[in-house]
């Protein structure tokens, strides 16, 4: 038998406690920018989407790397071709997803009259810029977490998703604030 619930709990507990603490910290950053965000609600409603897509793409990449490492078709090498291919596809998927969702969010927002004079092109550009930065960060974090945990004889499946989504949630908010100038 490969899995045991005790091992899942033993590895999961400290990491998840740390992730929860960092998420509470991300909540504090959000709280600090709350007043500015309430004035431009189109960005406020974009936050779960920005973070969600970033976390999802990072988790998919991590799950794929973990399976590849377990089975052996991905090597523990920073120059591994399969790994590069997975990374570039993640970036491509990210760009398409953010563009499509930006357009959908924009039309939902203009329907509820909360665009506040922000143009479609400007909005798509901001989301795409935040999204691309975020995908790069989560992908690199995902690769390092998968490789490092596997190298140390741990199961990457236990580590990648929590690390990636937590960093994705924090960095997504920070990148958005930087780009729209919330101090």
């Amino acid at each position, binding site marked *: *038998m*490969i*899995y*045991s*619930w*005790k*091992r*899942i*709990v033993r590895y*999961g*507990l400290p990491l*998840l*406690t740390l*992730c*929860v*603490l960092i*998420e*509470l910290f991300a*909540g*504090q950053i959000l709280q600090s920018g709350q007043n500015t965000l309430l004035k431009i609600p189109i960005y406020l*409603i974009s*936050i*779960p*989407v920005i*973070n*969600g*897509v970033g*976390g*999802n793409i990072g*988790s*998919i990449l*991590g*799950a*794929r790397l*973990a*399976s590849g490492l*377990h*089975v052996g078709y991905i090597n523990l090498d920073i120059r591994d071709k*399969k790994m590069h*291919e*997975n990374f*570039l*596809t993640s970036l491509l*998927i990210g760009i*398409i*997803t953010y563009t*499509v*969702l930006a357009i*959908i*969010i924009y039309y*939902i927002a203009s329907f509820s009259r909360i665009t506040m004079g922000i143009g479609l092109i400007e909005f798509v550009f901001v989301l795409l810029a935040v999204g691309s930065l975020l995908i790069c960060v989560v992908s690199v974090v995902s690769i390092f977490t998968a490789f490092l945990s596997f190298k140390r004889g741990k*199961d990457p*499946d*236990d580590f*990648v*998703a*929590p690390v990636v*989504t*937590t960093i994705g*949630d924090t960095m997504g908010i920070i990148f958005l604030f930087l780009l729209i100038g919330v101090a």
Partner: protein
Amino acid sequence: MFAKELLKQSLPLLILCGLGGVVAGSTLGVMTDLLENIPGLIVIIPAIIAMRGNISTTFGSRLGSAYHLGIINSDNMWNEELKQNIIGSLVLSFLISITIGILAYIIAIVFFDINPNPLKLIFIVLIAGVVSGVILTVLTIVIIYAVFKRGYDPDNITGPALATFGDIITMLSIFGSAIIVEVIL
């Protein structure tokens, strides 16, 4: 070709999940009264959502690896490997929920200068965490089974699907448990 398969299986799902994020965010909008009545509640929401997402996606990710390793498939699902994963996820949900309740109580006092009822907070997190944990575990098994049957790569599907369903179910569980605790305590 891995890239093409990844693009084809994940892209539509990712866009759908993005829209699910908007739904989960909107649930918060109808909770404003509860948030005002229960100090400290807003502090625990991102933490419970993060816990739920992390436990479910690691569960899904491990089942994906198990599938690739050939120790689990649609004909051989209900085995000891799956049971160990289920027990592990549920025990984690229980323990992390208690941790969140305690952390939220401390954070509310230190940063927000409010004094919430610690028992109330811990009970809300515990009920929401365990209820959403059970629902998500069942959902994971259903999704994994459907993915196996269709011959898709579970790695491309389970993460986003569970994260999105997780967010929505968790928000509803917090909403429900906050009402229950508010009535009882």
